[in-house]
Structure formats: structure tokens, C-alpha cells
């Protein structure tokens, strides 16, 4: 079990943060920006619904880099470190490691350069603008990367149907919140069209275009009547692979959350 797959519902964590800052430290803006440039020059965008000319961009970046990349990294973290490190500290760790693992930079040169900037915090960055890449960044932010596709078949479930949430083998990455596994809900809305995900999650089941449903869950059906607040409904958008007809549920017994 991975912490990030099962975060929803964990108890005894103490008070929430009410920090309304987007960036806690100025350096965090830079790693957010690096990640977003990587998404804008990701090789997969050549074949995206809104196709971008990334194959001819003047960049040495040749990988796919999507939200799935960042999320998979976060899901792979030690649970204590997941709680220990601030949001953009995790990004900095994950993205740096990606560039080392993929051979764009070496761990040694990163350590040496870090020591240099530690000793000279105001030392300038290399001056090497890339206007074509900046235009691609703008184009990506303005037009996005939708997973939408036309539907070629009727969705499996209709609005109002009761469904049972599947419990596929947990692998590296999922878009199924763990607290919903094996729970019953009702189809509140069948979204038009079908939706691909950035990558195939293998036996987890998503990737190729499929219908997405908005499922309504009574909180008492998820947490148990004695452990939930009254009059509370949880809505989740779930890919069709995560849903089963209630008739297929092996038994009606529910495991304790």
C-alpha cells in the first residue's frame, strides 16, 4: 500500500495548515517553472489532442513529462518523507533525480553547481534565451492538454445506476482514491465523450480513452455511520475501469475503512 494512494481518510494527523501562500519561499517558483516548461516541451504533445510542434522545438529535452510523471514519483515516496517535506521540496527532489536518472546531468555536476550557488547565492544564471521555447510555453498554457476523445460506444453505466468501485492491484500509479475501493456509490453524471490518461497504468486500468463518471457516495457508506459526519456527500470523478456493476460484487460485506 502506498501512502499517497490512501491519503484520503487517514486520522490523527492534527490540525490542518491554513497557510494561504502559493510559494513559501522564492526558490519554489523556480522549480514550479522548470516543471511547467518540461510539461510544455514534453515529447507526447506532438500527438496530443491539441498537437504542438514539439518535435521541431530547439530543445535537447526528448522525454515525456506529464502530471503522471510527477505524481508517480510522489506515490513512490517513503511515507514519512512525504509528510516531512514541503510540497515543492518534493518536486525539487523528484525532478532533480529525473534529470540525473535520464542522463541529462550527473549527480556530481549538480552537487558542484549547488555548492557554487550556495557560496555565491547571487551568481547569475547563464544568459541563453530560447524565444521559440517561450512561445511553446505560452501556447501550452493557453491551450492545455486535454485527454478528451469522441465516444465510439455507449458508456457502460447510466446516470442513477448503483455501482461498485473496483479494487485493482495497486501498482506505481493510480487515479483511484484508495478510500473508495470496494465502496458503493451512485452515478451522478456520465461525462460526454471519453478521456485518455497521460500513461497506461497497467493492471490499474486507465490510459486508453474511456468514459468518466461522477459518482456520489454517502459519507456514512464510506467511513461507517458512527465514524462519519452527518448529511455529507462525497463526489469523485472516476474512470470507467474503476467501476463494476453491483451485481458483480462478490459479497455485500464491506471491510472496515
Amino acid at each position: 500500500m502506498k501512502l499517497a494512494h490512501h491519503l484520503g481518510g487517514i486520522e490523527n494527523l492534527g490540525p490542518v495548515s491554513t497557510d494561504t501562500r502559493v510559494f513559501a519561499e522564492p526558490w519554489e517558483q523556480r522549480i514550479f517553472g522548470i516543471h511547467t516548461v518540461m510539461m510544455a516541451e514534453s515529447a507526447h504533445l506532438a500527438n496530443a489532442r491539441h498537437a504542438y510542434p514539439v518535435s521541431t522545438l530547439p530543445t535537447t529535452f526528448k522525454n515525456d513529462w506529464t502530471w503522471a510523471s510527477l505524481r508517480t514519483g510522489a506515490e513512490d515516496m517513503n511515507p514519512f518523507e512525504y509528510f516531512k517535506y514541503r510540497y515543492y521540496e518534493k518536486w525539487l527532489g523528484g525532478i532533480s533525480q529525473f534529470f540525473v536518472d535520464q542522463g541529462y546531468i550527473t549527480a556530481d555536476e549538480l552537487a558542484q553547481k549547488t555548492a557554487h550557488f550556495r557560496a555565491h547565492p547571487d551568481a547569475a544564471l547563464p544568459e541563453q534565451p530560447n524565444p521559440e521555447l517561450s512561445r511553446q510555453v505560452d501556447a501550452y498554457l493557453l491551450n492545455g492538454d486535454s485527454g478528451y476523445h469522441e465516444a465510439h460506444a455507449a458508456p457502460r453505466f447510466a446516470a442513477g445506476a448503483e455501482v461498485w468501485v473496483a479494487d485493482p492491484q495497486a501498482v506505481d500509479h493510480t487515479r483511484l482514491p484508495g478510500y473508495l475501493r470496494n465502496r458503493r456509490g451512485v452515478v451522478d453524471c456520465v461525462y460526454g465523450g471519453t478521456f485518455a490518461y497521460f500513461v497506461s497504468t497497467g493492471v490499474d486500468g486507465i490510459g486508453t480513452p474511456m468514459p468518466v463518471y461522477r459518482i456520489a457516495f454517502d459519507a456514512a457508506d464510506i467511513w461507517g455511520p458512527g465514524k462519519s459526519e452527518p448529511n455529507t456527500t462525497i463526489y469523485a470523478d472516476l474512470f470507467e475501469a474503476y467501476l463494476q456493476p453491483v451485481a458483480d460484487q462478490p459479497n455485500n460485506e464491506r471491510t472496515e475503512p
Partner: protein
Amino acid sequence: MSNLFEFPEDREASSAAKVRALEALLIEKGVLGSDSVDAVLKHFETMAGPFNGAKIVAHAWVDPAYKQRLLDDTPKAIAELSLPLGMAGAEGEHMAAVANSSDVHNLIICTLCSCYPWPVLGLPPYWYKDPVFRARGVREPRAVLQEFGVTVPPTKQVKVWDSSAQIRWFVIPEQPANTGHLSEAELATLVTPESMMGVALVAAPAV
């Protein structure tokens, strides 16, 4: 939570140096231009941000028919307004609005990561990204809201929206009482990102 852990004294300085080193190396290797990161940051200062969401909410308050259209087909209704380009851009390709009322309070969450409607709200604040909020918001939303200073009585329905697929949700908060005399632009200044995620109510201006 993080007060349970020990951090080096130079925690921020070392991260600042590391991210600068990474950016410098990526520029040298041709992965980034020296202007690329700034291009991203500029977008969130001028094009995508909570200033857009505030205008949408204020317009919904003064025009109930618009509010209904916004709930029925959020992207189409947003496209009616004079907002910057990119309202269906990155992390806003499929947005949907839900409305608070005397009977319903809505709370937006992303238990798996930090999905957030960028074009209308910009980037997510720390409370939204925090694992404690993401863990507790689906199990005890009223207790969480109370910690933000929002009391939701048991008789009022709470709807929690967990963003796990394509939709990016935002809330149309209730218009505060005694603000009917304010202009749409004045109303927009009252609307905070927190109110559009459901952890705050909109307050009338202090008199």
C-alpha cells in the same frame, strides 16, 4: 505535521542553491532557455489567477441567469466574459462550478495530488496541497472547515468534490448580506481563492 521532523538549519538556503544549480545546468544543456521559467511565472501574474475567478463569481452574483448558465455549462459561460486568453488552457481544459446556498456547502479537494483550476484560480495555496487537509477533508469536512473558521451546521448538506480525473472544480460562494449596493467590480474584490475552494465564506467589506 512537519514540526515532528528535524530539518537542517540551512534547509531553505540549500534548496535555493540546488534549484538555481538545476536551472543553470538545464540552460547549459539546452533543456531550458534562460527566459523559459520566467515565461511560466509571467503567465500566472497576468493571465491565469484568482482575479479571473473573482470576476466570474461577481458576475454570477449580479446576474442569476448567468449563474445558472455557469452551473449548467461552466466553460461556455466563462467564455461569455471578457477574460484573458487561456480560460480552457492548462489545468482548466474541463472546469465545473458548484454553488453554495442556504442548504449546501461545497468543499473542493484533491486527495491524490493537488488538482486545481489554474485559469480561474491560479496556483494552489499551501493549505490545499497539505497532506493533512487532503487526508481529513474527505472524512471530517465540518471539523476541517471549523479550523478555517467556517461553521457548517449538521442540518446543512456538505458536498465534497474529490478531483481525480479531468474535471477541475471551483465554488461559487454565497454573496454576503448587505452588499447589493456594490458594483460588480467592487464585489469581485471581496472574493478570495479560499472562498472559491469552499474553506472560507465571503465577508462584506468592513465599514
